[in-house]
């Protein structure tokens, strides 16, 4: 699979999940810099393993995560608890991994399951950095929305 196809699949997957779950139209662009988000921010990650292994992660500000949670749960974003926000972002990461799994299976022309997903985990804080420890290629897409930026990261390799 070439890089452009993988990046394209990440964009389409994210657009689909955001449109159906967050009711938000988003458009992405390839991003090759280090992800830096000022102030309080969140990262929701889902690992996967099987014929392919890796992880998907969404990185965003807390304000954007509240916007996502509010839209998914049909609640005012300032009424959401920390737990609501974390669960919503974890669910988005999980759905992106799930949708990407289907696209990857199509790309490699298999009806077999290409991977299974682990449970989502969410990091929340002000001054942390994350690093996928792998020799697998890493792909990142920046999405610029009216409510702020977010990033989708994918590390993927054949097992």
């Amino acid at each position, binding site marked *: 699979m070439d890089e452009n196809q993988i990046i394209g699949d990440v964009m389409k997957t994210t657009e689909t999940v955001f449109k159906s779950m967050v009711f938000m139209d988003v458009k992405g662009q390839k991003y090759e810099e280090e992800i830096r988000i000022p102030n309080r921010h969140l990262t929701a990650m889902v690992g996967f393993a099987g014929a392919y292994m890796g992880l998907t992660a969404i990185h965003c500000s807390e304000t954007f995560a509240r916007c996502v949670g509010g839209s998914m749960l049909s609640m005012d974003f300032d009424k959401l608890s920390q737990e609501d926000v974390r669960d919503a972002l974890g669910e988005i990461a999980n759905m992106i991994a799930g949708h990407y799994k289907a696209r990857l299976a199509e790309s490699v022309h298999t009806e077999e399951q290409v991977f299974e997903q682990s*449970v989502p985990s969410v990091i*929340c804080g002000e001054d*942390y950095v994350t690093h996928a*420890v792998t020799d697998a290629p890493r792909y990142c897409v920046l999405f610029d929305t009216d409510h702020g930026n977010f990033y989708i990261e994918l590390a993927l390799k054949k097992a």
Partner: protein
Amino acid sequence: MNDDILKTLVVHSTTEVFEKMITLHVRQEAAQEEALFNGEMHVCATIGFAGEWHGFLSLQCGEDLAYQVTSKLLVTDMADLEKADVWDAMGEVVNMIGGRFKAIFAESYNDGHEAFKMSLPTVIMGSNYSLVVVGSDRIPETILQADGKKFLIKLALKKVEA
């Protein structure tokens, strides 16, 4: 699966990896109420489990222990280490603990069959962050100590509903 059984298996796996691969003796510590790394720079190495069972394992330790572990694993003076060495070494350590746990769990509780595969490790570094597993109110955790420095192991594991 009983939390105490999981804790015992993960402590055993961690002790083996620390003692055999890093040559650091490990001792279990009593649980404590206050946060272990309150505002201090610390490292959290995580790995996901996916398959018939799914879950998550993390090892959190202070920056000093992370550098010490890296130094021993890479047989390199601490002063010569770069941050990237620490990322890689801590990812490798959680990968080894996960691998050992996977083998013991399969042998003891899954009739010798592979219960899950492991995803790629991720390492988080910072001084002010928290980590939660979605859908788990409380992740069983154990405080251990190596060379007088406390560290935390968290493990969540559930059988996937058919």
